[in-house]
């Protein structure tokens, strides 16, 4: 029983990381219809910078803030290249973000080398209903939940947030009422970058980061986001948590093997079922 609780909480912690990556994807996709392949790179860059800052003696909190800021700036930069040119189709933008993700590899290796990096998070072991787990997982959950609440508030209660939601629901109508859709796209990319960066900064103490860990992050993030059709942040949160728990349960009871497969097969199943429900032809999606 205590094993189960341990796995559950650890899974929620890992899943919260996926959910943050997913929410970044959703924030960008809603507004621009672009699936941002460089989302994992934001996390890696932020984590790498945080590791360096901590190594240079910058206190916790400030170092993490630096990482998230770098994520946001990178997001803005990626957005400027991917959607900055008027008339770029979402399919083209996807390929552009794919290229920028690979470019991030080059930058990361030049600055930080190709060895895995990590830094200490919340030290110690927490006890929860008899289960022992790394205390850092609790921090991940404790940060993720308010972040999602803050996002819900931002999207529904503030002017820029409502402008973003307007672009998401009807680009044309948003343009008509005077919202600069392109600038909103850049704002969405910046927000996505910050969320991706936050995911990287939070999960690195429990999961080492290398320059190419972005593939695992983006695939898991996409898997979480696709549950909500890439447009609903709250479903993405639920999806991320579900994915994290499924993976830790599979790893815990399956002896460590096949945890990658669990998430991926789940994602494939969800997508195929969704496609079967909505019908295969969606020409407007191009």
């Amino acid at each position: 029983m205590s094993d189960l609780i341990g796995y559950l909480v650890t899974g929620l912690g890992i899943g919260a990381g996926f959910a943050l990556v997913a929410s970044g994807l959703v924030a960008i996709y809603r507004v621009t219809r672009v699936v941002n392949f460089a989302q994992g790179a934001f996390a890696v860059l932020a984590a790498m910078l945080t590791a360096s800052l901590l190594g240079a003696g910058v206190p916790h909190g400030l170092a993490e803030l630096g990482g998230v800021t770098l994520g946001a700036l990178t997001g803005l930069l990626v957005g400027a290249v991917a959607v900055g040119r008027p008339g770029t189709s979402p399919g083209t933008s996807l390929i552009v973000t794919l290229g920028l993700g690979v470019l991030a590899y080059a930058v990361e290796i030049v600055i930080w080398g190709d060895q895995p990096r990590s830094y200490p998070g919340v030290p110690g072991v927490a006890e929860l209903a008899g289960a022992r787990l790394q205390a850092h997982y609790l921090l991940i959950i404790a940060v993720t939940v308010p972040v999602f609440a803050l996002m819900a508030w931002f999207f529904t209660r503030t002017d820029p947030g409502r402008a973003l939601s307007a672009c998401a629901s009807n680009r044309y109508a948003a343009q008509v009422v005077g919202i600069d859709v392109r600038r909103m796209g850049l704002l969405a990319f910046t927000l996505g970058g910050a969320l991706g960066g936050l995911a990287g900064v939070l999960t690195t103490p429990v999961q080492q980061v290398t320059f190419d860990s972005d593939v695992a992050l983006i695939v898991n993030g996409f898997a979480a986001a696709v549950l909500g059709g890439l447009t609903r942040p709250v479903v993405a949160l639920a999806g991320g948590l579900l994915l994290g728990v499924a993976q830790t349960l599979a790893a815990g009871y399956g002896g460590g093997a096949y945890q990658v497969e669990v998430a991926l097969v789940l994602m494939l199943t969800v997508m195929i079922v969704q496609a079967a429900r909505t019908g295969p032809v969606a020409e407007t999606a191009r």
Partner: protein
Amino acid sequence: MRRWIPAGLLIAVLALLPPLLPERHLATFVLLALAATVTVGVSLLMGYAGQVSLGQASFYAIGAYAAGLLAVHGVPPLLGLLAAPVIAAVAATLLGAPLLRLRGHHLAFATLAVQLILLSLLAQADWAGGAIGLQGIPRLSIGGFELRADLGYAYAAGSVLLIAVLIARNVIESRAGRGMRAAATSETAAAASGVAIGGYRLAVFALSAAFAGLAGGVYAFYLGYLAPGSFPVLLSIEFVVMAVVGGLGTIAGPLVGAGVIVLLVQLLNTLGTQPGMPGYAPAVLSYAVYAVILVVCVLYLPKGLVPAARSAAGKLRRGSA
């Protein structure tokens, strides 16, 4: 008659170039020809069937492992090489039946997921050598004549490329090819005109997988050693880069794209391994090249090098006439 000129040119290059190359460049030639073979399939898939595959390296891996495993277990290498594309195509058909319901970025992520699953399974499969890899694959032998030198593999890879190009050309010019081109522009219109879209999409997917499998088979015998690490996700992305840069929906595009990128990466590799360069230089330079070429090409030459060159040549001709 004119339509045979490019084919003749290709045959001439593939037949005459290898003996002229110094030994150290033959390896590049082999890898280039194999990459071009896979890219022909990717270009067919993206340009004619409108599907993005970010997992094409998985069929390369399936072909390579199929040929390698068969040969290790005593099947004649040539038979193993012939089985490689068949097994890859069968795998693609089985995977494609559910996956090809997906479109656009969903399909891209689905194919990526398939490759990650395959790599993870291969790393855990003891019968395929696990994470350490499959060792001791015999060399390719055809009728008792064993290919040892790189020159032999240069011809093997060249023949494989030629087969892929000829098949792709015939498919494009067939009735099915026209139907697919129509479907890539508008599925609804094509379906309304009586094109059996589902079947064609699956067939192209299987065909492109067969090309990748065939190239993978040659790769297995050429290197004699296979590991999951030889088929990273980045390899799949490289094939997409080559196809996009060369120009989707043309036959010459994948050849030009693969040629330009492999040669450029090779050049930078030589540059990066010069004394005085840091140890990470080759990797960094190749990542940067893939990324910059892909982004610049997609944004400023969206049709790719070959169509851009053709329209430039057409303008020149009209200008002088």
